[in-house]
């Protein structure tokens, strides 16, 4: 059966950046509405089965309430942890059981979790988070149609690999084996001069240190905007960017929107373009945390080392507009005229 999975994060769009910055609160009822539109889009192009991740808010259940569908839609029967780990477990189970595409509702952080388990199954990330560079601000009906087209085999060329940053902690290796990738980031990995993970988000420009970006298009929000404003788009599509940021007034002062409403100047004292496979070594004397896609995730002990590597073969992602374009050019949306009753 042609199957698609939907992972809607009920926690996205509600973190502390609504308090320390000016982030929008993303209502879970709006996520319900988005899931409905996705389902209708999927059904319209021939998807046969959909699994939806269970969550504490019941986004999937609410979406199905009163919605009349012909396709087989069910809430995924899975072991739950009642934490962000549920998104990864759901993705893994969906992929293991043959889902052809995954639709995600969340921000950069949600997609990072899902991408850890998506392997070669394409993602259709719909933005419902705070700093959104990886997911698209896209109408959910369009996203549903595009995912359905890819899942049904009509638009395979609309799928591409996104880059990612591999986090490698030498200390995490055991028995002298090669250190493994312990985590990933899809857009940015940043050293942040803060001792605790606590509420996760980052917003204080004076605490930003090393930054590695997979992309730096002008017009992005979050840490990616620092690279975007520094380089003005002057880099190759497969390249990443390393920025050395230090407090004080030396270096190049770059003004950038590091968060919603947080337009700050940071001092970039060094930078270089990264090619796939290039690594950045992180080592600081002060206690720091590593923030991945805008969320503090890993505490770094003073003096310890970790490596950040640009990897061109990150998750597969659907270009929704291209998928629609391909199908339209093939005449997919053109129906024969209805027969007259007489």
């Amino acid at each position: 059966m042609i199957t698609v999975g939907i992972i809607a994060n009920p926690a996205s769009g509600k973190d502390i950046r609504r308090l320390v910055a000016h982030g929008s609160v993303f209502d879970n009822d709006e996520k319900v509405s988005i899931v409905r539109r996705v389902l209708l889009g999927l059904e319209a192009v021939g998807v046969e089965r959909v699994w939806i991740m269970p969550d504490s808010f019941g986004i999937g259940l609410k979406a199905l309430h009163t919605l009349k569908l012909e396709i087989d839609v069910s809430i995924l029967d899975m072991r739950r942890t009642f934490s962000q780990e549920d998104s990864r477990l759901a993705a893994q189970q969906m992929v293991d059981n043959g889902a052809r595409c995954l639709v995600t509702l969340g921000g950069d952080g949600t997609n990072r979790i899902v991408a850890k388990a998506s392997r070669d199954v394409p993602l259709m990330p719909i933005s419902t988070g705070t700093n959104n560079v990886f997911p698209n601000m896209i109408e959910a009906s369009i996203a549903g149609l595009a995912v359905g087209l890819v899942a049904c085999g009509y638009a395979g060329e609309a799928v591409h690999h996104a880059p990612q940053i591999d986090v490698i902690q030498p200390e995490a290796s055991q028995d002298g084996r090669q250190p493994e990738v312990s985590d990933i980031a899809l857009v940015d990995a940043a050293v942040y001069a803060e001792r605790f993970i606590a509420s996760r988000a980052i917003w204080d420009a004076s605490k930003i240190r090393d930054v590695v970006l997979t992309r730096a298009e002008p017009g992005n929000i979050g840490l990616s905007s620092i690279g975007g404003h520094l380089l003005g788009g002057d880099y190759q599509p497969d390249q990443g960017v390393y920025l050395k940021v230090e407090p004080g007034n030396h270096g190049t002062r770059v003004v950038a929107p590091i968060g919603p409403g947080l337009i700050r100047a940071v001092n970039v004292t060094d930078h270089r373009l990264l090619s796939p496979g290039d690594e950045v070594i992180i080592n600081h004397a002060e206690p720091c945390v590593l923030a991945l896609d805008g969320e503090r995730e890993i505490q770094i002990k003073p003096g310890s080392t970790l490596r950040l590597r640009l990897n061109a073969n990150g998750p597969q992602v659907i270009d929704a507009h291209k998928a629609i374009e391909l199908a339209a050019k093939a005449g997919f949306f053109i129906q024969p005229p209805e027969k007259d009753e007489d």
Partner: protein
Amino acid sequence: MDINHDKLLWMYKTMRSIRAFEDQLHTDFAAGKIPGFVHLYAGEEAVATGVCANLTDRDYITSTHRGHGHCIAKGVDIKEMMAEIHGKATGACKGKGGSMHIADVNKGMLGANGIVGGGPPLACGAGLTAKLKGTDQVTVCFFGDGASNQGTTMEGLNLAGVWKLPVIFVCENNGYAETTSPQYSVSGQDIAARARGFGMPSVAIDGLDVLAIHEAVREAVSRARRGDGPTFIEAQTYRYYGHFEGDTVKYRDKDEEEQYRSRDCLLRFRGVVLEHGLLTQAELDAIDADVKKTIAEAVAFADSSPLPDTKEILTDVYVSFPEKEMWPFQAAPA
């Protein structure tokens, strides 16, 4: 966010004290030693601790029927709390309030409250007082997911929003209003988003992480002190025991309980501070021993204290009794 050594010790001691206090009551209630009802806060310690770590004795809190943790975190004397719950004359309210009415105004603890949704109007009153007097005092209003449906809560949010009061609304969403999940009781189940409609910043925070709560409330307190108005925080947490002692907890499954217990606030805190050398094993063990002794002393104090004199039953009320010429005791008009 810099948290000094003393504050880290205080956080651990406070969470450990609440846990030990509640575990003791769980045992003593089952043994028939506690009069009346008790609603235990075990599992939710990170919320009260992370919030009150940002407050001083001059700041106020309003509490709930599940108020022991709030009391301890705000500095109410543990011996007096234990005596109060045992209904003894040495209690925080002379043994006449019991578990659901512990108060200590000197510590800014305006009272536990048996009325679900009773706190928000009181918090607005305290907030309005601070605003009119021009002080920088902050009031924190604790309430639960059940109370989030109450009219009093909506009115409180509205007043605080309209008057830009220095009030922080902390919704302790422990997943169950008595025995009912928000899935069945909270329409538009997104409590944090619902609060946004009252025109104040609203966030949802991991309520099992004392450092996350501390960081969010620190920002909310700063907003309130500088006159920027109220904030809403949904702390997503979990209670380990039933709604009340005696609740057989048939409405949630063991797997769910185990998942939440695996993220226990005390275990997580210990892990962070030990791994990064912020506190030592010896310091934490010393606190554990000290708390154990404190709770044992509190129980002994409660056990050895007298019951209130029956003459006290009509004192410490708003109007002294019998007060002549006061309704309903005044003579009917001729």
